[in-house]
């Protein structure tokens, strides 16, 4: 009981000193809880949406995906004849059945040819207005569409693009461009996260999306009273026989949900991973805080021991303080987490994804996980300092403060650290020289973990060396103030090491990823320069939501100034390889023979041009090895929705190039021989090459032709393409840096914490220095310099370590075509300079407080 009382008193007496540790716990817990609440809320939103929008039983054509989405490689949705409606109606328990037509392979533009598709990655859906959708949508202005000239738009899309009744809309798909005027605007009664939806009347939808009437993509079946969905499904299946997909509302919702969940899970685990890094960094902060509290209280603890407290009582009293810290930090963190979730939802809103706070979902597991994590991590982090407190001898009460450093422990620590670092470096070396990517990546992971732990362990040792070097290089300029800052940073190498290590973790990841990212760009650019023999690459802006319609290919081919145009068409087929294996739904790329010139891929056997001969193909090296394929081997290729061919392998391409890695090529003519025209997939890309000296004019002409007729397509020359690649990787890196910012913020708090506590610890010294004439400015500068030294120390370790990791990863990935190592020096130098500023910034408040101390009181402090 007394232990608890002492702990409580100590805790509240030093609450200022605990504040930053509490914030670190709060931030980490908040991030975890925020992630959980946010993803749960997204799940709820989609769940509600899918449940509300599905009819009791949905019947779709066989080729449709489970989610009921009707995209296909042909640009036209799979359909069923209208006669199914009659058959379904004969089934028992059917109250009503309504046929509908939907497609997601449509690009919708306004009168200015600006696309109306969501930028969030949500689908654009064009379909027939039907009774099922009328349950979840209300027409809020105008009327339902009637006839070929009318379209109804969902309210969110109308708002975002300022569409009004009567506005002209263009719908572009494989069948051409259809114009219509907005006849009505319909509002969702449930939360629609962001799909853009356009309704036509059924006949127009059939004409525009499929090209003929009398067909449906979906039939929504309603159950009669007292008939369960499962029963209805059974009855409908019995009535229709095979050849159709029949799903209950639950099944449709589940399939959709699974689709969404897999995306959400990636996001969730990525964010939790970053929260974990923040926790890791926070541990250093907590250890430092408790170590300093214990050191400051050495005499007090000695007194407690002298008057009869047991070791474990002292130990426990420190742990109870940690428990209090953990509980307070975590409780606040859980609250802040909900705030973060709402913030994320708002952020999503600005990116075009609508989420409603009505759906805010806080599962009971969320606060539980947050609290447990926060408390356990805090108490574990405080364990070492608590043990040290227990070891304080009763004699400490009598001695002057300041226990002598344990030299032997330092030596043991250094040895362990060196062994770990050595083992880590060895693993990294093994990874860099590995000849198989798979075994190498394990070594890489091991090396990263070992070097990280090793650096943390020998951090204090490194602090001694590096701070001296920094002192000699930078601090000398600042004279005695610089020297004192150096000595202060060196005074407790363990503390400096831990503070620097916290910053090191975040920065190492930044450095590593930036090296890998820029190596990716450099390698791809290098390869583009070496292998690409064409001028222009044409493709849809949004590959998920569009392919290249034949009339667009025609438009490209008709552009003046071009010598050749190559079509690039991915198809699917079931392969039967010479080793007897059958590989389902395997990619095969059909292209014009000129593709061998457009992309000069290396071959390890044969000539790539021969792969475009009739009934021929190429495979890549790895595939060939895995399935015992040689030049001249025959592969049985059963094209999806087509006939079965026996193709002869006439070239084997090298596997270590990043562009079009692992592609198997055949000619368009071969594909066309086996796949009927109405099942023919569309082109994914078209390559165009200009006549010599006409590149600029041809580029202009292509751009003009596509903008007018096919705004869904983008043409890029090599420069644009490289830039797009760079932007894409840059965007990804920025997102990761943004998430790493959390860990870095916690590390910065750690620097502030260390300085603030050192200032408190050195109150008397500061008083003395002020008494003998150190000015406030000099004092503040001294503290700032100490802070900068700690931050720069952490940055040097982190950047060094990270660049090492990055370079190793590149060497390993060279096996996969990442041939060029590029160190992004501007980024590295910016991070380095930035961390010096972080040091300055972190010292602001501690330096200010030190400067404000009353000299006499400071001297008199015990």
């Amino acid at each position, binding site marked *: 009981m007394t232990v608890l009382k002492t702990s409580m008193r100590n805790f509240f007496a030093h609450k200022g000193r605990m504040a930053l540790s509490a914030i670190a716990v709060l931030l980490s817990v908040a991030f975890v809880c925020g992630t959980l609440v946010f993803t749960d809320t997204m799940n709820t939103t989609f769940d509600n949406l899918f449940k509300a929008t599905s009819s009791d039983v949905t019947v779709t054509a066989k080729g449709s995906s489970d989610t009921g989405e009707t995209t296909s490689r042909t640009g036209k949705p799979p359909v069923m004849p209208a006669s199914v409606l009659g058959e379904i109606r004969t089934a028992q328990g059917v109250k009503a059945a309504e046929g509908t037509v939907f497609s997601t392979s449509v690009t919708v533009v306004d009168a200015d040819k600006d696309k109306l598709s969501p930028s969030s990655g949500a689908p654009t859906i064009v379909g027939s207005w039907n009774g099922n959708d009328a349950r979840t949508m209300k027409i809020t202005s105008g009327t339902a569409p009637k006839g070929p000239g009318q379209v109804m738009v969902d309210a969110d899309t109308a708002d975002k693009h300022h569409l009004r009744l009567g506005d002209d809309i263009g719908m572009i798909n494989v069948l051409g461009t259809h114009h219509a005027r907005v006849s009505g605007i319909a509002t969702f009664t449930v939360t629609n996260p962001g799909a853009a939806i356009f309704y036509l009347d059924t006949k127009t939808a059939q004409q525009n999306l499929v090209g003929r009437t009398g067909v449906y993509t979906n039939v929504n079946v309603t159950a009669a009273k007292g008939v369960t969905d499962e029963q209805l499904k059974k009855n409908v299946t019995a009535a229709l026989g095979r050849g159709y997909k029949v799903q209950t509302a639950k099944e449709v919702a589940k399939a959709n949900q699974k689709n969404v969940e897999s995306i959400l899970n990636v996001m969730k685990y990525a964010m939790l991973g970053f929260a974990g890094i923040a926790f890791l960094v926070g541990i250093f902060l907590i250890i430092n805080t408790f170590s300093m509290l214990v050191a400051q209280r050495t005499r007090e603890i000695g007194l407690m021991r002298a008057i009869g407290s047991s070791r474990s009582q002292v130990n426990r009293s420190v742990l109870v303080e940690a428990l209090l810290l953990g509980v307070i930090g975590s409780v606040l963190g859980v609250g802040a987490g909900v705030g973060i979730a709402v913030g994320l939802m708002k952020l999503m809103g600005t990116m075009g994804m609508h989420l409603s706070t009505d759906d805010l979902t806080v599962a009971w597991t969320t606060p539980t996980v947050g609290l447990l994590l926060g408390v356990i991590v805090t108490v574990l982090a405080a364990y070492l300092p608590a043990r040290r407190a227990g070891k304080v001898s009763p004699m400490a009460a009598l001695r002057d403060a300041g226990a002598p450093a344990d030299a032997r422990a330092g030596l043991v620590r250094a040895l362990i650290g060196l062994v770990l670092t050595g083992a880590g470096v060895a693993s990294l070396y093994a990874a860099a020289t590995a000849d198989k990517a798979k075994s190498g990546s394990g070594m890489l992971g091991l090396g990263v973990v070992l070097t990280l732990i090793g650096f943390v362990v020998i951090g204090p040792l490194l602090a001694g060396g590096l701070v001296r070097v920094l002192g000699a290089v930078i601090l000398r300029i600042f004279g005695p103030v610089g020297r004192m800052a150096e*000595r202060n940073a*060196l005074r407790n190498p363990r503390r400096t090491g831990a503070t620097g290590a916290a910053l090191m973790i975040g920065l190492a990841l930044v450095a590593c990823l930036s090296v890998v990212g820029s190596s990716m760009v450099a390698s791809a650019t290098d390869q583009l320069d070496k292998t690409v023999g064409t001028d222009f690459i044409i493709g849809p802006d949004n590959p998920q939501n569009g392919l290249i319609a034949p009339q667009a290919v025609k438009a490209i081919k008709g552009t003046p100034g071009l010598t050749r145009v190559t079509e690039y068409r991915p198809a699917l087929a079931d392969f039967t390889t010479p080793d007897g294996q059958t590989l389902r739904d395997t990619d095969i790329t059909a292209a014009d023979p000129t593709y061998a010139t457009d992309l000069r891929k290396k071959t390890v056997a044969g000539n790539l041009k021969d792969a475009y001969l009739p009934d021929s193909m190429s495979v890549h090296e790895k595939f060939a090895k895995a399935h015992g394929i040689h030049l001249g081997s025959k592969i049985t290729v059963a094209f999806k929705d087509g006939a079965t061919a026996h193709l002869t392998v006439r070239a084997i391409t090298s596997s270590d190039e990043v562009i079009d890695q692992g592609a198997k090529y055949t000619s368009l003519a071969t594909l066309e021989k086996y796949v009927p025209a109405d099942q023919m997939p569309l082109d994914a890309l078209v390559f165009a090459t200009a006549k010599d000296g006409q590149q600029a004019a041809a580029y202009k002409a292509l751009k003009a032709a596509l903008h007018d007729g096919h705004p869904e397509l983008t043409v890029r020359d090599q420069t644009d393409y490289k830039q797009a690649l760079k932007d894409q990787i840059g965007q990804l890196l920025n997102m990761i840096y943004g998430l790493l910012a959390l860990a870095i913020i916690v590390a910065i708090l750690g620097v502030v914490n260390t300085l603030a506590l050192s200032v408190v610890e050195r109150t008397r010294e500061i008083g*003395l*220095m002020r*008494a*003998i*004439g150190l*000015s*406030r400015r000099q004092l503040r500068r001294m503290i700032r310099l100490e802070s900068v030294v700690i931050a720069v120390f952490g940055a040097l370790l982190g950047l060094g370590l990270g660049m090492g990791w990055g370079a190793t990863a590149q060497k390993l990935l060279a096996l996969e075509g990442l041939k060029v190592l590029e160190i992004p020096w501007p980024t590295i130098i910016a991070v380095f300079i930035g961390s010096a500023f972080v040091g300055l910034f972190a010292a602001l408040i501690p330096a200010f407080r030190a400067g404000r101390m009353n000299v006499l009181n400071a001297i008199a402090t015990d």
Partner: protein
Amino acid sequence: MTSAVTTTRHGGTGGRTAVAARARQVVKAYGSGETRVVALDHVDVDIARGQFTAIMGPSGSGKSTLMHCLAGLDTVTSGQIYLDETEITGLKDKKLTQLRRDRIGFIFQAFNLLPTLNALENITLPMDIAGRKPDRAWLDRVVETVGLAGRLKHRPTQLSGGQQQRVAVARALAARPEIIFGDEPTGNLDSRAGAEVLGFLRRSVDELGQTIVMVTHDPVAASYADRVLYLADGRIVDEMYQPTADQVLDRMKDFDARGRTS
């Protein structure tokens, strides 16, 4: 006045007046109204140049407060304090810090040294802070005088309490301040080490012409001084020239007895 602050002076050797510091009608009060406590009550005092002055008095008499005010460590409620011709009351922190750095030396009872600096670095610290080069010959003489020549590279933790105080004395002397203030500089030392330190202070007055003001409650320490000031209830109640330890002790017993009867 500004120029006076920044001018480097040499203790005892170049002073213009016979008075190194003076206090005029100095009042120092804490709190207000009912809880008002007067630590210094209209104190007038002149500190003679080149002399060793001891300030004595019972606990709470205001002796430390007087020293802190004279040294520019504490502010006064009213009255003026001059260091030579410079009025230090009313100076801003920046000027006051410079004044302490360039013209005043300090020896505290304990914790005089920075643990991160060795003995020599501690001795030259005030000059380092000021960005001045120490006078090599003078520094050698001071180090010689306090007998630290063999221990200059030692850290404070490697020195005994007496040695630490000697380093503090050397630091105070090294910059040739106009006045050295000592706040019970021997309070934490045994009598032998204390005698050593006091001997050095005495010699620095006799041989180097240093001005020293020391707060103490030890009659033996006070006997090293040229003059003893007695404070009681914030007022100077008596003084004594060329004291001996016995005389000081008698006088103090006197005060104690008076204090008890009044």
